[in-house]
């Protein structure tokens, strides 16, 4: 791999950090300069990410553009980054949202501009790093690093009850993450023999494959003696596997968010500024689904299958419950937040269907949700900038005074409802097809499909209350339609919503190999799945050899006696000698 290839991902991850450094040096009162710096940084990141995306070869090896360097050898931690199909798509999404978020906050954020943009850039680095890391500790570091800037964004630049929402957000997600940390450490100790332990994603996975097969054979067969001769690793996996899976799953479920750990999301979204909401809905919620896809399910397929019905049911509940919640809301942002819960329910359902269509649909839905819900928050943010109120009853008849804005909002609303021709339809269709094709009961698919009716109901109700009808409030009469900057920010979303709906194949092509490997890994040992170890093993770079500057650790055992410099020393009597 060329120098460019191996360092591209690192460049992408740390470029926002570099620009954060530059922005930190600027004087705090130079708001324009800071904004421009942030925008330039984000744009450069986007360009590099786009370059990465286009260079990613769908038919090539699973993980491309890898980089690995020694970091903390004694603990088995290496700095290992690389991307597969899903990761590169999500990184593109993150890169895409970056500059648009900066543009969206151009006029809205006026206090402490420097700190805000620093937070945005740091957040960008953390998010990109999470997607690209192939080492568990590195993943965890970036994962936790995401929380701090987001906490500040919500807590400082948010609305009336921002502090409470920020604290709720961080404590909720932190609680889940701590469980994940315990699971990571357990995995570290269990999966590999002493002396060869590392936190590397691929190494842990490869060492678990054999044990997983044994365990699958044990749980699938009804013969009494099948579980007698399990290797120690398989025994450990049997006892602790479900617990570790649940630990990972809870951490990611909080992030998704799944019912019933979703209540932080409405508060966080309502109180966050528009930029915060866009990033939160656009990328951070995908961390949860990404975590399931990359870590929770492949590591513990047997446990995942055990809990498949539960999580599938929770996903369905999320779809219907989220939609029903939307119908009861009076606050627009809260409504959009609950619609997120509903959409990501589809995502999780597609994943737990464990079929190729469902997995592809789930991955595609991750991208779709980022675009359409991000756009909803963006557009509503523009309205909020003008009026600073969020209740449905404060609006009404907006289409009369802001026709262009209404048109764009309607297009995005249709994308959210999954009207064919928009991106939402492709994702939802594939998810539903995958659910029907899977071994989950048919009822799951039918209930999930009612989500489309409810989505139309609540979204059009919101559109009606806000945009149509007579103009009831005099304050709404003076609203200006979209400015050039706002139009420039919104158009990429519209273009993607329509483009991804009409030409999804380029995106699906990159996701397809990732989906098929995911399904193969998740169905190890399921009756009817024949995948060899060769197919599902993860092949990554080896650790680079120790360089000359690092001395090998001294062997434990007897040490060489230290030689003291010559000279006179006080001679102590030996123990045991009688004193004179």
């Amino acid at each position: 791999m060329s120098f460019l290839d191996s360092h591209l991902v690192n460049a992408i991850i740390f470029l926002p950090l570099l620009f954060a450094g530059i922005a930190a040096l600027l004087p705090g009162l130079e708001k324009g300069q800071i904004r421009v710096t942030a925008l330039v940084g984000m744009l450069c990141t986007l360009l590099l990410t786009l370059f990465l995306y286009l260079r990613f070869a769908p038919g090539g090896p699973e993980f491309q553009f890898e980089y690995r360097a020694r970091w903390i050898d004694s603990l088995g931690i290496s700095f290992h980054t690389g991307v597969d199909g899903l990761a590169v798509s999500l990184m593109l999404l993150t890169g895409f949202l970056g500059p648009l978020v900066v543009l969206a906050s151009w006029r809205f954020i006026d206090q402490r501009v420097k700190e805000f943009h620093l937070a945005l850039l740091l957040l960008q680095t953390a998010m990109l790093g999470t997607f690209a890391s192939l080492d568990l500790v590195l993943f965890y570091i970036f994962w936790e690093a995401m929380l701090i800037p987001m906490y500040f964004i919500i807590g400082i630049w948010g609305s009336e009850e921002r502090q409470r929402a920020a604290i709720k957000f961080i404590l909720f997600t932190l609680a889940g993450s701590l469980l994940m940390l315990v699971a990571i450490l357990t995995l570290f100790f269990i999966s590999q023999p002493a002396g060869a332990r590392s936190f590397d994603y691929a190494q842990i996975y490869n060492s678990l494959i054999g044990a997983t097969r044994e365990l699958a054979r044990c749980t699938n067969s009804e013969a009494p003696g099948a579980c007698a001769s399990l290797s120690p690793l398989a025994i450990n996996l049997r006892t602790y596997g479900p617990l570790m899976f649940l630990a990972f799953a809870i951490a990611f479920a909080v992030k998704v968010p799944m019912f019933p750990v979703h209540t932080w999301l409405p508060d966080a979204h309502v109180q966050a500024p528009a930029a915060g909401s866009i990033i939160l809905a656009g990328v951070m919620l995908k961390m949860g689904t990404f975590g399931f896809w990359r870590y929770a399910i492949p590591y513990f397929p047997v446990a995942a299958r055990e809990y498949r019905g539960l999580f599938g049911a929770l996903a369905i509940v999320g779809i219907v419950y989220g939609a029903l919640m939307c119908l009861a809301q009076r606050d627009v942002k809260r409504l959009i937040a609950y619609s997120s819960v509903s959409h990501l329910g589809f995502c999780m359902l597609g994943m737990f269907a464990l079929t190729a269509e469902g997995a592809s649909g789930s991955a595609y839905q991750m991208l779709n949700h980022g675009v359409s819900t991000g756009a909803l928050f963006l557009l509503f943010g523009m309205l909020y900038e003008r009026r600073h109120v969020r209740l449905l009853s404060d609006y009404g008849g907006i289409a009369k005074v802001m026709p262009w804005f209404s048109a764009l909002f309607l297009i995005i609303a249709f994308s959210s409802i999954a009207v064919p021709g928009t991106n939402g339809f492709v994702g939802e269709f594939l998810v539903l097809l995958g659910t029907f094709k899977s071994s989950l009961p048919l009822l799951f698919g039918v209930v999930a499909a009612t989500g489309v009716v409810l989505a139309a109901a609540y979204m059009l109700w919101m559109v009606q209350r806000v945009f149509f009808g007579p103009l009831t409030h005099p304050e709404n009469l003076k609203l200006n339609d979209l400015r050039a900057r706002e139009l420039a920010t919104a158009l990429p979303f519209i273009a993607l919503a329509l483009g991804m709906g009409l030409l999804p194949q380029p995106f699906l092509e990159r996701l397809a190999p990732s989906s098929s490997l995911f399904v193969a890994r998740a169905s190890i040992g399921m009756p009817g799945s024949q995948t060899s170890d060769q197919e599902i093993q993860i092949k990554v770079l080896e650790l680079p050899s120790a360089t000359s500057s690092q001395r090998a650790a001294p062997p434990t055992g007897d040490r060489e006696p230290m030689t003291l410099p010559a000279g006179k020393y006080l001679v102590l009597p030996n123990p045991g000698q009688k004193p004179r």
Partner: protein
Amino acid sequence: MVPIQHYLWLAAVLFCTGMFGVLVRRNALVVFMCIELMLNAANLTFLAFARQRADNLGHVSAFFVIAVAAAEAAIGLAIVIAVFRSRGTLNIDEIRTMKH
């Protein structure tokens, strides 16, 4: 020779007296004195065992303890003086600013 148990009993009595004083007395200076008493009891124990084992290790340890006691007394008395200057009292019961 004096049997070692005498020394140990003496040291124990001194230690308990000192501990009792630390826990009960109200005057900060008296508390310090009792701490010194406890430290000296420890010293006595060290020396007794050193004598019994015919070892120098106990003596060396005693020296350590004396040095540390001296340093601790110096700093402690400095704190007591600072507290007295700001509060006007050395009654421990009245110095409770670390209460919740």
